[in-house]
């Protein structure tokens, strides 16, 4: 990207309120996920205190019905959430890139076959498949969960990237590259992809948010990781042990609010970035 283009981008990025707010929220939670566990005084699953103790100086977010420290669970869960988002989002985006670029650039038969596969995966009820797979695995970790989520989330990314590639493939500079004898992969990653960086970034953000939400949903219905904590699991336990009727609000409000805030902030960032990248949406 040119120096001028870059400074222009930063100029509009800084002026965009949505982007600033969204990024600030994400940054806040990311810092908490990184440094929070060091601040937490107790291991997340250890029984340390009286049951269902409301927030206090000792236990910032109170304790669970088993007497576990909610703050430590929360920061560890936050970490898990970001890990799922990173791994699941990356896998989903990479698969989407691979399939989208191949289909869009090659066209013809290759495109039709890939498009068929994409459509099939797209209409499979993802959550149902995840439930079935998760039910078969007795020991489940964050990593396996992230991989499953990534493996099922790529189709719409692939479709979006394919459509973009289609429109870029017919540009004259791609023809220029072809008559320079460049190999296909070089044209895709050297000529086409750099022009879609902003688009790929948006795809990644949405994949990240999607993975976080999917993981929360899986955990909430009890099919999450068995060997750790996560925000979804916290809500799952809170529900199972009647935190709602017992009015132990400090148990389920922090994880619920955090998931909402993170996913919400990701979407707001996405809209903000879109406005920055797309000159038509810019306000002068």
């Amino acid at each position, binding site marked *: 990207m040119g120096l001028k283009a870059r400074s222009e981008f930063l100029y509009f990025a800084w002026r965009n309120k949505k982007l600033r707010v969204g990024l600030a929220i994400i940054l806040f939670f990311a810092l908490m996920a990184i440094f929070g566990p060091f601040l937490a005084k107790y291991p997340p699953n250890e029984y340390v205190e009286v049951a269902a103790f409301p927030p206090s100086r000792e236990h910032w977010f109170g304790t669970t019905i088993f007497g576990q420290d909610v703050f430590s669970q929360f920061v560890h869960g936050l970490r898990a959430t970001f890990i799922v988002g990173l791994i699941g989002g990356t896998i989903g985006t990479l698969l989407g890139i691979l399939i989208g670029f191949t289909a869009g650039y090659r066209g013809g038969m290759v495109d039709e076959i890939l498009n068929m596969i994409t459509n099939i995966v797209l209409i499979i009820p993802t959550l149902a498949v995840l439930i079935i797979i998760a039910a078969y695995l007795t020991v489940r970790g964050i990593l396996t969960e992230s991989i499953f989520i990534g493996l099922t989330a790529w189709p719409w990314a692939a479709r979006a990237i394919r459509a973009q590639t289609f429109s870029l493939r017919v540009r004259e500079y791609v023809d220029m590259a*072809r008559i320079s004898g460049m190999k296909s992969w070089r044209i895709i990653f050297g000529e086409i992809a750099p022009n879609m960086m902003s688009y790929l970034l948006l795809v990644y953000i949405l994949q990240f948010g999607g993975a976080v939400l999917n993981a929360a949903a899986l955990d909430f219905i009890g099919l999450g990781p068995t060997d750790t904590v996560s925000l979804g699991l916290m809500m799952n336990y809170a529900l199972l042990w009647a935190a709602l009727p017992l009015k132990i609000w400090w148990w389920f409000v922090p994880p619920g609010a955090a998931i909402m805030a993170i996913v919400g902030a990701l979407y707001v960032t996405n809209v903000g970035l879109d406005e920055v990248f797309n000159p038509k949406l810019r306000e002068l």
Partner: protein
Amino acid sequence: MMRLDRVSKIYRVGAFGARKLPAVCDVSFDVRGGEVVSLIGESGSGKSTIGKMILRLISITSGKIWFNDMDISTLKGNALKEYYRRVQGVFQDPFGSYNPIFKADRIFQIVRREFYPHIPQADWDEKVERTLTSVGLNPQQVLNKFPHQLSGGQLQRFLIARALLLDIEFLVADEIISMLDASTRIDVLNLLADLKARGLSILFITHDLSLGYYISERAVILYCGRIMEMGRTESVFSNPIHPYTQLLMDSVPRLDQKWAKTVRSVEDGDKAHLAGCVYYPRCSKGTPECTKAIPPLVEVAPDHWVACHRW
């Protein structure tokens, strides 16, 4: 040099490619060594499709394209690369031909990387500068800049220089000056003419008859993917025989002559495929006979060919 033999391009559209959409039909002509041939046609005439088939950017549906007695449609891998070393193209949109996020001179680096990886950088830089000077550019002024910092004329010269860095024998110039401003386009055209003088063969694709006349020895008039008339430029322009060529000649806005009051011929959108002449629906001289068979290209005078039942 370059010979097209009954070349056709048919697109299949609709579900399972049920409908056939011919873009180019049975086109045969050749470009000899050191010759400029104009391929003249309106939008949708298939002229760019022909250029792209020669450059192997689009596949040929039927027919053959021969480059020095070599069938180009089967070229693969290294053979194709060697072909590109000798046959190159420059396209219409100077800004579109550059990847907007990179500097314009990156096209030279790509040529080096793909074709001359063994030439030392210093020698290469010198060769680039020499070539830029030969196309009328000042290397200091144009190197190390982004496409939007250069003018359309400079960018097209850049692309011509890029082609010249290779051992080029044949150039497809597809509407290369139609997007340039009047005051600069003629210089790019002159540059092409100078290259011809050095022995380069050029296929000059254009919709502008006066440009075609200015630069080429021979002209091919295309309509709806078929050749209507072709031959030596003077014969075709001063003695147009096909009604379509005559209409074109009458419609060209000139500075030395006003439009004659002729019967208006505007298309009414009817593009139904006929068994006969494709120009029949717009033709002022058509007879029922014209709808029965496709008129063959006939040599009506030495090196002057016409495809019309009524000539």
